[in-house]
Every structure is written in structure tokens, then in C-alpha cells.
């Protein structure tokens, strides 16, 4: 038997600061990996560091971009984290986001001349409902037929993408758009108000922060949040207590779907102003990483979303100014989550190096 030079034990009590360790280690390693990857492509380390992690703060425009990208990541991750805490693995936020964008786009596309100020709230509502409905399919087949939600939500992602392609190429295509696969531009009432003139950041970041507070209240203080968490950590205890599993699955998936759908509506009504094929640069998947990196806790996710947005913007800048491929972004996302999950061992367990064991204090 191979003997490891360390021993992993169950912790008897945990320090309140330990959970910070894992994300910090992950972020540090990710930053280093980014520099190394860019160096390998001929970008000097100093410049790489600047492009990836400092340039996002180098101008008002870039800072605005960070908050613009942070909003959907934060929104979706809060919804997903509630599900993940309940061990309901909704991997379909990307698809739910697309459905939200499709749903929200219907109003401005079909009422393109409208001046009604209620259009934007209605779009948000429809977007959230579409996202919920898409996630609801997975909830239904899981509760009714016990079909694995990981696989179903994933498949629904691919189907949602094809549905979007179909719609922008056909029924929802701008009739005056020279056959480009995209919808007509939304009217003014169908667009999110911009925060600062000349920049792209809009009020969706406020919604995301409000949702963060609500998520905190839900997870830390509400009885439903508690029931979901019991279901996730100890399913037998949930059954013992009489917290229905089916109900938990429905709630977890619908919340995740609503948040992602809302994010989709905001993307369509925000920076894009129309429905098009590349409505999301992978926010739905990146939000999974954000949710974990934030320790599945509302406040942690706030910081995680910010960091992930920095990676996105830094990657974009590196792409335009140094010709670094977008794939670097994806690699960094992968490294971030892998290192985070590995570093969790220091949070969830007690790791002792060497084989000598100290006697516990207070043992007779």
C-alpha cells in the first residue's frame, strides 16, 4: 500500500477564516497560470500580468466592462449556489439564460414601436419565467421519473442553443437585417438604463446585488433555505424531518432557472439590445465556477463574481491587444475551479503532514 506523507482527518471544529484560504490559494495559482500561459505565447510576464489583471482597472471603460460582466455572473451564481447547497446539480444555467433572453426578446421584437415604460419589467418577468420553465423540465423529469438532473440540464443547454439558432435564423430574424441571424434592435423602452453616459454598464449590477442580499436572507435565515440545505447535506435527515425531496428539487431548480433567465433578459436588454446567436460568452458555465469559488455562500459569491469578471475582461483585452486566444480564458476558469476544489481539503478536513500524531488536548 502506498503510504501518503500526510493524513487527512475529519475536523473537530473549524476556524471562521479557514474558508477564505481555498479561494485565495485558487486565485493566486490562477493568476500565476495566466502569466505563464501568456509568457509561453511570447508575452513578457510583466505585460501578461498587466493585460490580464490590471488593465481591467486601467480605464473607466474597462471598469464599466468588469461590472457589466459581473452582473450576470453574480445573478446566475446566486441562483445556482442555492441549488448546489441542496445537492441539486443544475448545470443548465447556460440554457436557462438563453431561454430567458429569447422570452424577454419577444416583447420588443413584436412590439418594436412600443413606447410603454412597462416593457422592461415585463421583459424581465418573462425572461425569468422562461428560464424557470426550462429548468422546470429538468425538475419535472427528476421528480417524476428520477432522471439525473446533471445530464438533463446539460442536454437542455444544447437544445436551447439550437432553438436560439433556429429562432434568430427564422421566426425572430430582423426582416430588414440583410439576412443576418439576429433580431431587430430593441426600442428604447426595452433597454436597460445605462449608469454612466458613454459607458456600457447598466442597472443590472444593482439587481444582481439586490439578489445577493435576498439570497443571503434565503440561505442563512429562511426555513425553506434550511430545509434545502438539510436535503443536500443529509438526505436521510431530510426524510426523517419530513422535508419533501421533490419540493426541494423543484425549488432549487426553479430558483436557478429564474436567476439565469433574468440574467438572459438583462443581456438581451443590456449591452446587446437585440437577440443574436452569441448572446452569452459562457456565463452559465462560468457561474458554476463562481458559485463554488464563493464557497456557495452569498457574500463569497459576490467577490468570486468580481474576480471572474476581471478574468473575462482581462482575457478580452489580452485578445485584442496581444492576440491571445479566448481559450486562455477557459483554461484559467478550469484552473481556478480545479485548484479551488483541491484547496478545499484544507477547509473541510484537517491535514497533518508527517505520521507522528499529537495527542488531543483534554484526552484522558
Amino acid at each position, binding site marked *: 500500500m502506498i503510504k501518503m506523507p500526510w493524513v487527512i482527518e475529519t475536523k473537530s471544529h473549524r476556524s471562521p477564516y479557514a474558508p477564505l484560504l481555498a479561494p485565495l490559494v485558487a486565485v493566486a495559482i490562477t493568476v500565476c497560470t495566466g502569466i505563464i500561459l501568456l509568457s509561453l505565447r511570447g508575452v513578457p510576464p510583466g505585460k501578461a500580468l498587466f493585460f490580464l489583471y490590471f488593465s481591467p482597472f486601467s480605464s473607466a471603460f474597462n471598469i464599466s466592462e468588469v461590472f457589466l460582466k459581473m452582473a450576470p455572473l453574480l445573478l446566475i451564481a446566486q441562483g445556482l449556489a442555492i441549488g448546489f447547497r441542496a445537492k441539486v446539480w443544475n448545470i443548465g444555467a447556460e440554457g436557462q439564460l438563453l431561454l430567458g433572453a429569447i422570452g424577454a426578446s419577444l416583447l420588443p421584437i413584436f412590439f418594436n414601436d412600443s413606447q410603454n415604460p412597462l416593457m422592461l419589467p415585463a421583459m424581465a418577468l418573462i425572461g425569468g419565467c422562461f428560464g424557470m420553465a426550462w429548468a422546470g423540465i429538468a425538475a419535472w423529469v427528476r421528480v417524476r421519473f428520477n432522471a439525473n438532473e446533471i445530464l438533463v440540464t446539460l442536454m437542455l443547454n444544447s437544445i436551447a442553443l439550437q432553438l436560439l439558432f433556429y429562432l434568430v435564423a427564422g421566426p425572430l430574424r430582423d426582416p430588414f437585417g440583410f439576412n443576418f441571424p439576429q433580431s431587430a434592435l430593441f426600442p428604447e423602452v426595452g433597454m436597460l438604463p445605462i449608469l454612466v453616459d458613454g459607458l456600457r454598464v447598466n442597472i443590472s449590477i444593482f439587481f444582481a446585488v439586490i439578489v445577493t442580499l435576498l439570497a443571503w436572507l434565503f440561505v442563512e435565515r429562511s426555513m425553506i433555505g434550511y430545509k434545502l440545505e438539510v436535503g443536500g447535506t443529509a438526505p436521510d435527515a431530510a426524510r426523517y424531518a419530513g*422535508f419533501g425531496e421533490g419540493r426541494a428539487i423543484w425549488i432549487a431548480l426553479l430558483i436557478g432557472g429564474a436567476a439565469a433567465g433574468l440574467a438572459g433578459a438583462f443581456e438581451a436588454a443590456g449591452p446587446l439590445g437585440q437577440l443574436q446567436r452569441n448572446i452569452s460568452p459562457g456565463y452559465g458555465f462560468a457561474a458554476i465556477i463562481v458559485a463554488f469559488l464563493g464557497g456557495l455562500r452569498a457574500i463569497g459569491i459576490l467577490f468570486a463574481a468580481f474576480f471572474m469578471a476581471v478574468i473575462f475582461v482581462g482575457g478580452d483585452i489580452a485578445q485584442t491587444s496581444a492576440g491571445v486566444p479566448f481559450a486562455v480564458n477557459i483554461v484559467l476558469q478550469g484552473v481556478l475551479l480545479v485548484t479551488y476544489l483541491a484547496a478545499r481539503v484544507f477547509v473541510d478536513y484537517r491535514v497533518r503532514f508527517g505520521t507522528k500524531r499529537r495527542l488531543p488536548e483534554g484526552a484522558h
Partner: protein
Amino acid sequence: MKASSDATISSSDRDQEAPLLELVGVTKAFPAVLANDDVSLRIQPGEIRAILGENGAGKSTLVKIIYGVLVPDAGEIRWRGEKVAIRNPAHARALGIGMVFQHFSLFETLTVAENISLATAQSPAELEPAIVEFGDRFGLPVEPRALVHSLSVGERQRVEIIRCLLQDPRLIIMDEPTSVLPPSGIPPLFETIRKLTEQGRAVLFISHKLEEIRSLCHQATVMRGGKVIASVDPAKETNESLAHLMIGRDIPHPEREAATPAENAAMAVRGLTYTPPDPFGTILRDISLSLHPGEIVGIAGVSGNGQRELAAVLSGETMLPSSRRDQVVIDGNACGDIDSGKRRSLGLAFVPEERNGRGAVPEMDLTKNALLTAHSFGLTKRGFIQRPAARAFAERCIAEMDVRCGGWDAEARSLSGGNLQKYIIGREIRLQPQILIASQPTWGVDVGAAAAIRQQLVDLRDGGVAILVISEELEELLEIADRLHVLFRGHLSPSIERARANTTLIGDFMTGGFLAADQAPGTASL
């Protein structure tokens, strides 16, 4: 070690020989407890040695160290006179140490022969004749091609013993081997054990049952709190003197008077038939049972005869289809199809056999664990948790039940099994139930705490609560129950009044003796 090949060794010879196994100053600590503290002992060939101690005394840890599952922090192990570091169970087996586990280490989806093959060099097919032959020789009949999940607990134990014997060990460790047997299964097991030692093998017999140790073992090493307290000849001791050594004082017994049960049943089960979705589970067949306020009804039986399924159907963790909802009745209401939360609001409280992960959430603190079943007792307001109220509730449970823990913010998993059980029982009692179902209430709990829990149950009964205790410890049921049923292969025996209850009758029922008398398996009547 030529002596080991001798057929028999007299008691006096044993003392003079070099020991088969010798432990010197073995120490093992876990994060919360010092499980073995400077333990030394020697075992001679041909000896049947008891390790006696109550739950938590450190017996299991010691055994795991000898078998290489755990590595000691300090101390020395000598095998046949030579110092060894037993690295892992494979190494232990190579040395000649075999083990029969208390919680079986068998694989349910594999056949008997496959299971045995995993611990030996031969293929399952090659092993089949050997399994049959060993079965004949030592009185351990078992079908080599049977899937383990289809076997009774006793049969599984035989598989464990055969698997151990096929490796031709010099020392066989048996961890609480009688705990899974009906009374009638114990004498044959002892016969088998005596046959084993005739060839110079030694047996290390781990138990907390005094009677058995006195009738079987040559020497008894008594452990308490991780230390060796004494080494005695059990035949020369009484149950009382052994018990005193084991727990350091006399075993307390609950004070009880005769029950005065009320007329109307608080809970009734009528013709319950239930097939669990788990293919390895036990089918419940036509079970009828009534539970009156002011009485304790016990359900005895060897584990794996449907206790788990029955408890889940009664508690509401398993729900019946609506068409059969009237098979479970609480206070006149048919409620077979409602969940455990709704049954709780009808006055049913339940203490499950698993504490961590079922009765409590291991990762959550005691305050949050109070919410698990007590949330509707003023601990929430408009859907939000009232933390001060929950904390006060937890603190009262801790104080009233004398739970030893780090306070209301201690995680459930940081508590010892006994203390967590006390907390859970305290929580359920504070719900002021009309009906209390307790599954293995004192399993793994130390003697003092077990006595306290039994006294609590008797006091509740006196307060007019209807109580059902499902237990594999017959002694416990005989001590507290007013009447008894026995579960056997999903059938429930007729009720036995306390006055009529004795080990012989119940032992007969535990092997299905009641079936021939009144109902043949499979016949269902409503």
C-alpha cells in the same frame, strides 16, 4: 512456534509458552478521544481470550490495530515473539491474523464465493468445494453461489468465518459475533469456536455480554476508557463482578411499575404489507400492531428481518400509496400516505437508529439540529428562523439530558454517539409527543447513558405516552417493555405479555417459531 501445530494444549502449558501475540504499551488517539491508552496484553496459542468493555472502551480500536486497519501512535506489537509493524489487513493476514467483523465487510452484490475469493488467491470457482468442505467440518453450511444480499445475517456471519478460516489464520479476531444471532444460534457458534482452537488457533472474542464470556473464554481482558483495567479468569467471576470491572460501578436498572395502558390505541397498524424499492430490503407481510397510551411495546428480532422497513413506514419516512393509507392509523386518522413532518404534527415522535445523518445533520450545530423536528414549536416566524428561540431550545435539551458537548454551537458530529443520542431523545421529548417510536435507542451508548435513556422512556410511559421500542438487544426489551412482538422475515409475531416473556420463547419466535403455529408465510389476511 511448533506448539501451534499440536492438537490440544492444556491450560497450564499455555502460560509457559512464548505468546502468539503480544502488545506492549499500544496507544492510539483520535481528534476527540484517546481510544487506546498504553494497552498491553499477551495471547497464547489455543486460547480463547475475551476483550470485555462497554461501548467506547476502546475494544474496536484495539482490534483494528491488531488487524492493521489502524496504525498505532505508540507502542509495540510482537507476533510469535518478533516485533512487527502491521501495515495493513493484507499484511495481518499474511502473518496469520484473521478477522470476523461485527459490521460485515461483505459485498452484497457479489456471491459468497466471489466474496471469499477477494480475500484469497483462488478464483471463485476453485473455492466452491473448499467452502462446502469447511462448512461441513465446522458446522457452517452456506451455498457458495448465493448472492450475499439474499442471505440472513447469521448466514453472512458464516461466510465471514469461512473467509477468515480459508486463510488458515493462527489468530482469529471476532468482533461482537453473537450480536447478530438469535439465542438459538449462539451455542452452535461457540461449538465452532471451540473446534477452531483445538488445532492451536487462538481466538480473540470481543464482547460486552458477560454470560457469554463466562461460558466460553479462558481469559478476559477488561477495558475501560481506553485502558486495560484487569485481566481475569471469567469462569471464576460472576456477572456482577465482571460488570463492576467493566463500568467501574454496578449496572443501574430503571425503576418501573406495572403499566396501566389506556383503552383506545394511540397508533395502530392494520394488515400492513409493504415491498421496499431496495432489492436488498425485507418485505413486510401482513403486520398488525396496536400501541396504547401508557405502555411500552418492544419489537425484538435479529437485525435484517424488517426492522428498518417497519420503522420507516411507521415514522413516515416511507409513505404508502393513498389506496393503502388506512394500514397505518394514528389516533383514529388513516395516515399511511403522509410524510413524517405531518405525522409529527399528529403527535408522533421518532428516534431513528442512525444518529449522524438521519436523526441529526452531522455538519450542522446543535441549534440548527433543533430545527430539524422542532421548527414548528415556535422556532420560526413567517418562514424565518428565530435564532434566539432555536438556541434556547437547544440549550434546554443539552441541560435537561446532561449532553456532554461544546454547547449549542457544537457540530453534531463532534458529539459522541451516546451524547448525540441523548440530545436527539431530549429534542423529541420536548415535542411532547403522544406516541414515541425509538429504534435501537441505546445502540452504541455507554452503560450509564443507556440506563438514563431507558429511565426516560419508562417515565414517559408513566406520563401516558405510547411507546414503541425496536431493539436487537433482547435484555433491553425484557427490562423495559410491557409486552413484546418479534419480527422474523417481515412477519410480526403475536404479542407476548411481559409475564410470559422469556429467552426461550422469544428465541423460538426469533427463528420463526410463531409462523407454523398461526400463519404460513405468504398468506395474507385482512
